[in-house]
């Protein structure tokens, strides 16, 4: 299912998604990305550098949040520009004693922020929160659409 630029309106929601995050997700992201900073898996190290606990890689949250956009666009290659600022860390609790429980929950919602008919692109503005706080700010993905 492909979205067409001609049917879009600024201000329209593209949907929302809930991402459950566990410590295992952070270990998997560390391995896949090559970012083995101990703040993402070692509590005493994280607390030693002044963090409230083990936190998710900002790039994990950025990478997971854009799935809302790629699912909507129908083609992950349509994302030509994607940016964000990292404001608050996502603290991921240790839930290994209860494997079904998420260590953190990230909520993602997207709205069409701008349309450029000439370039056939739409800018999707993402709202990304965890524990009631914005964790990504100015999260914007520009998609090229047919």
């Amino acid at each position, binding site marked *: 299912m492909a979205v067409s630029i001609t049917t879009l309106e600024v201000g329209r929601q593209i949907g929302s998604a809930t991402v459950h995050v566990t410590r295992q*997700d952070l270990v998997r992201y560390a391995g896949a990305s090559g*970012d083995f900073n101990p703040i993402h898996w070692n509590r005493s190290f994280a607390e030693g550098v002044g963090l409230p606990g083990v936190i998710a890689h900002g790039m994990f949250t*950025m*990478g997971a949040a854009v799935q809302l956009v*790629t699912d909507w666009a129908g083609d992950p290659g349509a994302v*030509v520009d994607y*940016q*964000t600022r990292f404001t608050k860390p996502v603290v991921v609790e240790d839930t290994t004693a209860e494997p079904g429980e998420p260590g953190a929950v990230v909520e993602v919602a997207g709205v069409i922020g701008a349309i450029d008919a000439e370039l056939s692109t739409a800018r999707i503005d993402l709202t990304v929160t965890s524990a009631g706080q914005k964790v990504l700010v100015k999260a914007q993905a520009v998609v090229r659409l047919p």
Partner: protein
Amino acid sequence: MTIAPDLQGRTYPAGEPYSVGREAIRDFARAVKATHPAHFDVDAAAALGYADLLAPPTFAIIIAQRADAQLITDPDAGIDFTRVVHADQRFVHHRPILAGDQIVAELHVDQVRAMGGGAMITTRAELSTVDDEPVATTTSSILVRGEGQ
């Protein structure tokens, strides 16, 4: 440690090419919970017009952070990597990244600003194929926290 005063404007040349593999794309897609079949199945990628598996939109961070590592681990730059926080990130894709690509990254230190006792450093990695085809421009700001911050 003290940030080198002449850091802004420095360039780190492209190192060894990063070879984009199918399994690396599949692993990274799983790691960011991406489920689109074009990341996993060559036929699904072909149905969208891609010659091989399509990388997720933030896959280029692997290559960009390897380039950044040259700066962060450069003893002459004066960056204490244990005090580094990722502040912002942007990807501009000139074309999608596909399995089979051989990509090099040239790193530019675009800006260094004093922030309290620390510094905000903005870098730009220009990613291109070994045949000089532009692939992506990634920009990243890191905050190096000063002592006691």
